[in-house]
């Protein structure tokens, strides 16, 4: 038979551990990217020429399909191909490429008069960054975070072609013998994860940036 829902019950623990693995492989790169993209984006946003060159370079990295990155990474770094670190590193590079763009755009969207009045009141650059610029840049950065998390969840499954892939392994399992159930389970779980994390970021955004709610959409 090609569809067997009882299979799910028989394999709950495997599905569960793949789910956990998937979340970790998708989220850790986002965290790493966030930590790198903030300072990097700040520095880039301060320049003009360098920014353009740098962002162009980032754009190129970004255009490389993730599978190609998964494969080239171990060969360049010298790690074992099956090492999950490859996936995390490759996805971190990817996520950073996207988030830097968001940080730069976000910081650049802060109106100059606002920055100037902060300086006029006596804020140093650090205080101005954390009290004024970043909060105002957050909507754009949060939007970037949502994009990164959702796409990472989908991209992780592609890694099954190189032996990893977490929930992607269920695609492999189903495809091997015309078995639809694992494929559907994996699709549903990944979409659910995407929805949940997207909503989570949105929730955090609503909580921490209350002034946005007054503005019309």
């Amino acid at each position, binding site marked *: 038979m090609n569809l067997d829902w009882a299979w799910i019950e028989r394999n709950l623990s495997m599905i569960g551990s793949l789910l956990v693995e998937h979340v970790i492989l998708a989220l850790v790169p986002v965290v790493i990217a966030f930590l790198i993209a903030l300072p990097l984006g700040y520095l880039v946003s301060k320049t003009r020429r360098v920014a353009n060159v740098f962002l162009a370079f980032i754009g190129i990295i970004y255009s490389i*399909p993730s*599978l190609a990155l998964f*494969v*080239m990474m171990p060969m360049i770094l010298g790690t074992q191909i099956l090492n999950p670190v490859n996936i995390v590193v490759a996805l971190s590079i990817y996520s950073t490429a996207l988030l830097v763009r968001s940080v730069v755009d976000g910081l650049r969207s802060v109106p100059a008069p606002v920055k100037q009045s902060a300086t006029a009141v006596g804020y140093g650059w650090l205080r101005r960054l954390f009290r004024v610029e970043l909060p105002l840049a957050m909507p754009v950065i949060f939007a970037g975070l949502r994009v990164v998390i959702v796409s990472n969840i989908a991209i992780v499954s*592609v890694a099954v072609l190189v032996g990893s892939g977490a929930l992607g392994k269920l695609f492999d399992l189903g495809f091997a013998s015309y078995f639809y159930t694992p494929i559907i389970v994996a699709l549903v779980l*990944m*979409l659910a994860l995407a929805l949940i994390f997207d909503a989570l970021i949105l929730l955090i955004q609503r909580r921490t940036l209350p002034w946005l709610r007054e503005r019309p959409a």
Partner: protein
Amino acid sequence: MVEGTAGMNLFEYLADPANWTGPGGIWNLLLQHLGYTVASVGLAAVIAIPLGIVIGHTGRGSFLVIGLSNAARAIPTLGLLVLVVLLLGTGIGPIIGVLAILALPPVLTATAAGIRGADHEAVHAARAIGMSEPQVVAKVEWPLALPLVISGLRSATLQVVATATVAAYSSGQGLGRLLITGNATRNYPEMFAGAFLVAVLAIVLDILLGGLGWLARRHASPGGRKMVHDPSKIPVDVVA
């Protein structure tokens, strides 16, 4: 042979001319990959551009567009491909169909946004001098929207190049085949060849379309005056 060391000549598969010829050779796989890309992005454009123009111009249905691009990002392309091949076989039709579906959202979103964001003064002026609606669209909104449309096509192309790589898993065509065969036989140079060529293809297409977009932008803003309001600061799509 030690796993994954950079000391090994990773380029040796690419360097061997015998690997380039023949039905399974690099040229053929490259052409297949390019063919899939052009066909599916073309198909998507044929559907998405007119639809996007209508949505952008009339302002109706924009909710559809926003939700669509967010949802599309979440689709695991491998799962979709596998499902389609199991259900519809390995024919070129189903594969191009899937790729076109994945290419639709970026083009649709960009077109709608571009038309919507076309400089309102220019549009009003056009109406004021008596242009009909279709003329307004064709003569004013479309040229102004073109840069964004091209950026949408660019995102779509990258998405398709990436997904076509994965498609080799289910149908054996395209550059992804080098990756899969190389992985199965632990032939690192072959795997690297696949990854490298896919990356180069993506970068080249990205630069080409980027250049096209730059030209379109210059055409749209001849005096340097910004004629298009770019509503989205975030890249329109992410490639899988």
